[in-house]
C-alpha cells in the first residue's frame, strides 16, 4: 500500500461537535496543520482536500461564514502542496448572501464548496441550493456534499436532482457507504449521472462496499477519503485497510487511492502533479 500515492478527498479543518466521543475544540492553524501533515506522512497521503467542520457557529451570519472560508484559505497557504484543494462552504440559510460568497471565494482561488446539510439546516435540494450550485456551475467549481445514511436533508434522491440539473458540475458524495441502502441509492444515481462520484469514508460496508461500487460503476468513480477531523491521531486508517482488502487490480486501486481525485480536482487546483 505504501507504493500508492493517496489523495484524501475528505478531510475537515475543525471539529465534529454534538457527537459523543468526537473530538471538540480547535488548535491554532499551524499546530493543526503540523498534526495533519504528520498523519498524512504516516499513512502515505500526498495531498488532500480540506473543508470546514459544518457544525460551525455563525451568530454574525454571512460574515462569520466568510471568516470560516478565509481561515481555510489561510490554512492552505501553510502547505499548498499538501492542501491544494479547499472546499469551503456557504450557508443555505443565508439566501442570496450565500451566492455572493460563492463568487467571493472563487475569486480568492477556492475551487470547490462543501456541505453537510443535516448540520446546516436545509435540504440539499432546497431552491437556494440550486441558485448556489448554478453559480458554481458558471465558475466550474466542484460540489462536495455529505450523503450520510438516513440524514433526510442529505438523501441521495436530493443529490440526484442537483446532478440532473447541472450535468457539467462534478459532484462528490461523501459518506456514501454509511448503509447498504444509502450506497445502493447513490450508486443508482451515479449510474444515471456520470457527474456523480463517491468517497469511501465511513465505510460501514467494508471491502464489499468498495467491490460493489467498482462492479457497478467501474473504478473511476470512487475516491479515497478518510473523514479526518482536526488534531486526530489515528492508529490506522480503516479506509486504507478496506481498499487493500478489496483486492482490486492494481490499476483500479491506484485510481481509487488518488488518481480519480486528481482528475476531478485538477481543473480547479492543478493537483495532477501532487
Amino acid at each position: 500500500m505504501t507504493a500508492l500515492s493517496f489523495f484524501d478527498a475528505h478531510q475537515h479543518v475543525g471539529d465534529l461537535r454534538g457527537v459523543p466521543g468526537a473530538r471538540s475544540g480547535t488548535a491554532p492553524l499551524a499546530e493543526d496543520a503540523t498534526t495533519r501533515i504528520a498523519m498524512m506522512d504516516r499513512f502515505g497521503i500526498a495531498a488532500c482536500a480540506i473543508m470546514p467542520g459544518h457544525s460551525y457557529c455563525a451568530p454574525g451570519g454571512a460574515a462569520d461564514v466568510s471568516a470560516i472560508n478565509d481561515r481555510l484559505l489561510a490554512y492552505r497557504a501553510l502547505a499548498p502542496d499538501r492542501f491544494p484543494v479547499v472546499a469551503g462552504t456557504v450557508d443555505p440559510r443565508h439566501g442570496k448572501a450565500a451566492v455572493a460568497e460563492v463568487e467571493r471565494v472563487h475569486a480568492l482561488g477556492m475551487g470547490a464548496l462543501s456541505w453537510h446539510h443535516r448540520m446546516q439546516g436545509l435540504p440539499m435540494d432546497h431552491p437556494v441550493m440550486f441558485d448556489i450550485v448554478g453559480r458554481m456551475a458558471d465558475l466550474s467549481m466542484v460540489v462536495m456534499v455529505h450523503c450520510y445514511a438516513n440524514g433526510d436533508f442529505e438523501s441521495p434522491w436530493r443529490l440526484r436532482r442537483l446532478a440532473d440539473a447541472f450535468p457539467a458540475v462534478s459532484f462528490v458524495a461523501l459518506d456514501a457507504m454509511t448503509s447498504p441502502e444509502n450506497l445502493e441509492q447513490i450508486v443508482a444515481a451515479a449510474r444515471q449521472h456520470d457527474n456523480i462520484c463517491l468517497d469511501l469514508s465511513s465505510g460501514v460496508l467494508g471491502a464489499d462496499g468498495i467491490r460493489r461500487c467498482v462492479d457497478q460503476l467501474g473504478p473511476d468513480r470512487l475516491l479515497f477519503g478518510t473523514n479526518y477531523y482536526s488534531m486526530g491521531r489515528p492508529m490506522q486508517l480503516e479506509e486504507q485497510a478496506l481498499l487493500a482488502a478489496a483486492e482490486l487490480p492494481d490499476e483500479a486501486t491506484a485510481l481509487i487511492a488518488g488518481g480519480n481525485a486528481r482528475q476531478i480536482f485538477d481543473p480547479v487546483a492543478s493537483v495532477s502533479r501532487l
Partner: protein
Amino acid sequence: MIPAIDVSLRILDPLDDHRLFDMRADAAEMEALIDERALGADTGSYFLVAPTYYLLARGVEDMAAVNDFLVAQRRRCPGMRGLFGVVEPKYGDQAIAGLERLARVGATGVVWSPRAQGMFGDDLLLADLVRRAHALGLLSMMRAAPYSTNEALWRTWRLAEQCENIPILVSGALQNFDSAQMIAQSAGGPANLHYDTAGWTVSTFLPRLTVILGQRLLFGTGGLEPFASGAERIVEALGQANVAEGMIGGLLGAHASCLIPTAAREARP
C-alpha cells in the same frame, strides 16, 4: 363547540415546507398566513409559533427580527394568547442573550427545531439551553419533523431525560406513524414530555393516545391546518370513538391551561 386553545399555530407556507421567510420582505404575507390558519379562532385562542425556516444572513439580527415580528402580532391578533419565539442554539452567548430577550418581551416559550438548526435533538448544548429557558420562565417546544433523524423521537426522549422535571412540549411527533406507536407503547416516554396533535392522522390512533397520555396531550395544529377545522376534526374523531366529552375538552383546551399557566392571563401588551 368546546373552546379550544391551539398550542402550536406555526407560521408555515402550506406549499413549501422549507420556505426561507424573509422577516422584512415577507411580513405581510406571513400575516395573511396567520390569519388564514387562525380562522375560527374567535371561538378559542392560540399560541403563535415562529416559522421553522427564516433567513439568517445577518445572524443575531435576523434571529431577533423573527421574535420582533411575533411580538408585533399581539397587537394585531385578538386570538393570540402567547408566542413561541426562536433562539439559534449554535449562537453561543448570543443564544443565551436571545433567551433573556424572549423572557423580557413576555414570550410564552421558545421553539427548538434541531433539524432546521443543524443539531441533533439530544445535543448537550440543547439540553443546557432548555434548562436555561426553564429558569427564565420559558416553556420549550421541540419540533419533531416526521422521519427526521435529527429530530427523531428517541433523541427527544434523551433530551427530556437530561432535563428531568422540566416540561417540554413536543410538536409534530404524531405526524409520524412510528413515533405515534412508540409513544403509545411506552406510555408517552419521559414524564416531562407533552405532545401536541399536529399532523395527526387516522394512523395515529388518536383516541387511544388520548387515553394513554391524558393531560400530556394537547390540541395543536402545528400550522398544518386551520384552527377551526383542526379542532372539529378532533372532536369528530374522538366523538366517534366514544371518548368522554370531558377528555375531549381537556385535550382541546384545559390541558394547555394547565401546562401554560399564562394562558389564563391576558397577553402582555
